[in-house]
């Protein structure tokens, strides 16, 4: 069975699949603060540099993973899935999931498992505290950056200002209140369904 028409038609060589794997292995090591903190880099690599994903596939991958239950890192699997769909088959899509998920999980999981034991034994050590606290401001800045990039990418201010307003309103509501995220996501889905944003 062939997937429905993909928005892009690409051909990936074995070398390019390996490039994708190595890129995600590298992103995994850099993903302090979660895989979501490397989203700006994934966008630069997948959309801007290689044109393996369209902007809307990129955004949809994150939106679907956010709407579904489970850890948010599954958006990475959807990006791999969509790269494979653009390459033309469900087999390639499964390969894409395998490549991106192995890439994003294996290095960080190995490092975390080893460090959790070591760090627990040495948690009073100066170097442990310096690293843990020193990275905090950068992590905060990167998190806000991802929101800005996702909220403003590829959009036209004249027609898309309602979407910007929705992003801004969500930011304020989630930041300042304890309202459950599901209600805000449902509100966004309803506004979109009725073409209000």
């Amino acid at each position, binding site marked *: 069975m062939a997937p429905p028409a993909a928005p892009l038609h690409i051909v990936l060589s074995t070398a390019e699949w390996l490039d994708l794997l190595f890129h995600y292995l590298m992103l995994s090591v850099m993903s302090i603060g979660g895989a979501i903190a490397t989203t700006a880099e994934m966008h630069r690599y997948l959309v801007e540099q290689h044109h393996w994903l369209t902007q809307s596939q990129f955004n949809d991958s994150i939106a679907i993973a956010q709407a579904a239950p*489970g850890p948010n890192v599954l958006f990475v699997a959807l990006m791999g899935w969509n790269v494979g769909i653009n390459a033309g088959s469900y087999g390639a899509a499964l390969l894409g999931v395998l490549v991106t*998920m192995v890439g994003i999980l294996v290095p960080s999981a190995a490092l975390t498992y080893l460090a959790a034991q070591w760090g627990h034994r040495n948690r009073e050590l100066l170097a442990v505290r310096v690293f843990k606290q020193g990275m905090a401001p950068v992590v905060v800045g990167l998190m806000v950056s*991802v929101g800005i990039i996702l909220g403003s990418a590829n959009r036209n201010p004249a027609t898309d200002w309602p979407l910007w307003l929705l992003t801004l309103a969500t930011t304020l509501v989630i930041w300042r209140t304890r309202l459950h995220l599901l209600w805000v996501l449902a509100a*966004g889905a309803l506004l979109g369904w009725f073409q209000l944003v």
Partner: protein
Amino acid sequence: MSPMTARPRPTSLSDLFLSFTVLALQGFGGVLAVVQRELVERKRWLTQEEFIEEWAVAQIMPGPNVVNLSLIIGGRYFGLPGALAALGGMICLPLLVVLSLAVLHSYYGNHPGVAGALRGMAAVSAGLIAATGLKLIVALKNHPLPLPVSLLIAVLAVLFAVVLHLPLIYTLLVLGGLSCWLTWAKLKGRA
């Protein structure tokens, strides 16, 4: 609590796998709150203090925070097999769910309502991530560096990523290095 008291703990690898599967499937828009409720308040595998301690490690290490947390908790009881069982529970079934949604989306994604709903949810997701960043600013108040300095570093990180489009590695090496060095000087001065 006396360490001699028998404490609740996962009984087997399959108990770990199933427990993490169940809590991952409840986590719409993020699993952290569910992990805390299930493992600390309901199952009592961890105390509140232990949870915060493990969470700190999960956060400083690279990788998805809740995935790291599952590895740490699983590893605590059954070593490497436990870590893998908890990780598998967190990932396997939710992955099938999300891929099924993606296939459905490929058939119905052109429906204007579905496309609009996803557009709306994407805008909400962007706001959620930005809000998470803003919430973390509170944590900077307890940072060894003075608040204006740590805020300046955070703003520079935004500038690097949003305005200059620099690859992440430069931001982490240059700004992270600078920030760790300043923090080191400060903590060393106190000692």
